[in-house]
């Protein structure tokens, strides 16, 4: 046992810069793009700082997860990163945060579940964690521990989103508008969407509608060139500004997104359109301030109209709804957390040896049970002697492996080969 205790224990650690930890300017200079992540991982490996490494890089966070031995790794890592990115060491150190062991695991799980995101419960981060693992695997910097850790994090994040409502209520006004419209029309993809204004808001909404599968998108803009450009980009149809009254009756969902200081769709126009539509519902989503659509249109039979105030009210309510789900998400994360830690704890040599001995004793007893009563004692000694001889050399090597990370890999292999995690 002396060889095992002589080697230093491998530790899980996390060094990060995110929107909570400190100055945005430092964070922005450190932030990794896709290629930077690869390079950073290679630099870390080149320096021999850690035996495993994965980098989670999103708009608001750069987090380095690793398995390392000894102490002071986070300091050396900070120095390496600050030199590479040209940031003052003290500044980089001050705006960073670092966690170890179970706390690092808990942090990653919270990130995966969207609890650490600016928009609570957002789902994009799950994909970012997946691609972090993929990049690290391609660079060859993951092995047993981080691989398992990140797969557990993705599983925890998925569970949080399917078993609670943390990701169910939309937060952006466009998504809320879509949700409301869907509750009127059913399939939104089958409807005709008319977007007024080809500026930033109009473009974003038109793109979102195209992504949602809407086949018939029409774009009206005062300058026809921009309408045509946006229509071409998203596979829609441009509508001449002057032809708006004629286009209105054909539209099921009308989105107001022009910068016009006065309303561009009046009550009379909508009343005429509704007569032509024979009462078929019409839905106005006014994303413009000041409003593009006369708000009194909602008094017309079967016309639904929403402005930014109403949509933002719903967004606020949805934020509160997501907030209420946090305790349930945390309960799920705790479950996954302890499941991972149990696995991780078993990776130490001693528990694995105990498990292995237990497994062999089970096999031996099962075989002995088939023998006549009188002969069992004799064969037990014989079986134990063979098992001890057989395992002597492999176990000695396992215990005396000086490289902690390689030792973890081998323990994991033993657990896998002898099916010890059952």
């Amino acid at each position, binding site marked *: 046992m002396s060889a095992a205790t002589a080697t230093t224990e491998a530790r899980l650690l996390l060094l990060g810069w995110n929107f909570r930890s400190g100055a945005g300017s430092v964070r922005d200079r450190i932030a990794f793009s896709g290629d930077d992540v690869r390079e950073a991982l290679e630099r870390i490996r080149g320096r021999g700082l850690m035996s495993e490494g994965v980098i989670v890089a999103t708009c608001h966070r750069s987090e380095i997860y690793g398995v390392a031995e000894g102490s002071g790794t986070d300091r050396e890592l900070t120095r390496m990163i600050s030199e590479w990115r040209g940031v003052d060491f003290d500044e980089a150190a001050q705006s960073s945060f670092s966690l170890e062991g179970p706390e690092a695991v808990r942090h990653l799980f919270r990130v995966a579940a969207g609890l650490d995101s600016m928009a609570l419960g957002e789902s994009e981060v799950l994909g970012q964690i997946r691609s972090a693992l993929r990049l690290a695997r391609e660079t060859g910097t993951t092995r047993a521990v981080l691989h398992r850790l990140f797969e557990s994090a993705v599983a925890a994040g998925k569970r949080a989103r399917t078993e609670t409502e943390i990701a169910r209520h939309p937060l952006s006004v466009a998504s809320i508008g879509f949700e409301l419209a869907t509750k009127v029309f059913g399939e939104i993809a089958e409807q005709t969407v008319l977007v007024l204004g080809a500026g930033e808001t109009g473009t974003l909404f038109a793109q979102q509608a195209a992504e949602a599968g809407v086949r018939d998108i029409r774009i009206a803009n005062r300058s026809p060139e921009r309408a045509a450009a946006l229509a071409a980009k998203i596979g829609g149809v441009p509508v001449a500004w002057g032809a708006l009254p004629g286009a209105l009756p054909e539209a099921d969902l009308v989105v107001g997104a022009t910068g016009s200081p006065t309303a561009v769709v009046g009550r009379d126009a909508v009343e005429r359109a509704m007569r032509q539509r024979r009462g078929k519902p019409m839905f106005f989503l006014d994303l413009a301030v000041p409003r593009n659509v006369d708000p009194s249109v909602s008094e017309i*039979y079967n016309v639904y109209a929403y402005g930014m105030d109403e949509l933002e009210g719903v967004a606020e309510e949805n934020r509160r709804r997501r907030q209420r789900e946090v305790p349930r998400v945390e309960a799920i994360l705790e479950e996954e957390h302890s499941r991972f830690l149990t696995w991780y704890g078993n990776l130490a040599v001693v528990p694995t040896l105990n498990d292995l001995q237990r497994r062999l004793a089970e096999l031996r007893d099962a075989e002995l049970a088939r023998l006549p009563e009188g002969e069992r004692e004799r064969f037990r000694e014989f079986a134990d002697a063979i098992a001890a001889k057989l395992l002597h050399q492999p176990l000695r090597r396992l215990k005396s492996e000086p490289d902690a990370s390689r030792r973890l890999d081998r323990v994991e292999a033993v657990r896998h080969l002898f099916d010890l995690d059952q």
Partner: protein
Amino acid sequence: MASHALGWLALLCYLGAELLAIATLIAPRPAWPRLTTLAIAAGLVLQFANLMNRAHVLGSVPYRTLGGSVSLFAWMLGIAYLVLLVRHRARAMGAFLIPIIVVATLAGLLLPESAATASTASVAAQGTHGSVFALHVTLAILAYAAFTFSFVLSILYLIQDRQIRRHRTGLLFARLPALEVIGRMNRSSVTIGLAALVVSLVLGAFWAEVVWSSLADPKVEWAVITLVVYGFLLWMDRRGWEGPRVAVLSILGFGVVLFSYTIVNLYFSRAHSFR
């Protein structure tokens, strides 16, 4: 007195289906909607066996008694529900529609069995066994079942419309289907009801010509009024009233149905009632 063990078992199935449907609304699990449908189907089979048993004991059609008539109504509700489910795939409606089946089934089990009055006895004597008469009554009950669903769907429509207009995006908003879907289901219900009522009236008229040699009867008059109300509803649905107005009209129509099924049936109509 017929034994209703099968009827009570059917009621248990419907109750189970309702519990599953409510659970699905609160915290959906993939297997639950299918289990709900299975429970309804099992209830329908049991209830059908119960109806056959009633018929056997009476030596006649099961709706000679009020209990039997309401049981058949409950069974028709179940059938109509399955048709709507298959046609529109709106499983979320289960929690709101199944309670009507439960209540009707319970009423069918508790309402009196006997009370075969002189009038019904005479009807029986004049040929209750005739298949024309049986089909006439069955279709009339199917029509009432379909109009009942239309009534509930209309209420749900108005609730969902209110949620959307007041931007209340809570549990009810999330779980109720889109207005378009509820409206479509409502249209299906009314269409089934109207078709069943028209055929039932024609068969009834044919039968009455033979047996009574007269069509003058308050219940027939009210059935024609029902026909006019729902016919008008379907017509206006295509002429700009689709939506809340049609829902309100359907609720009014159901008032007429209730009136003719209860008041007219029990107090005005002599030769034509069953209780």
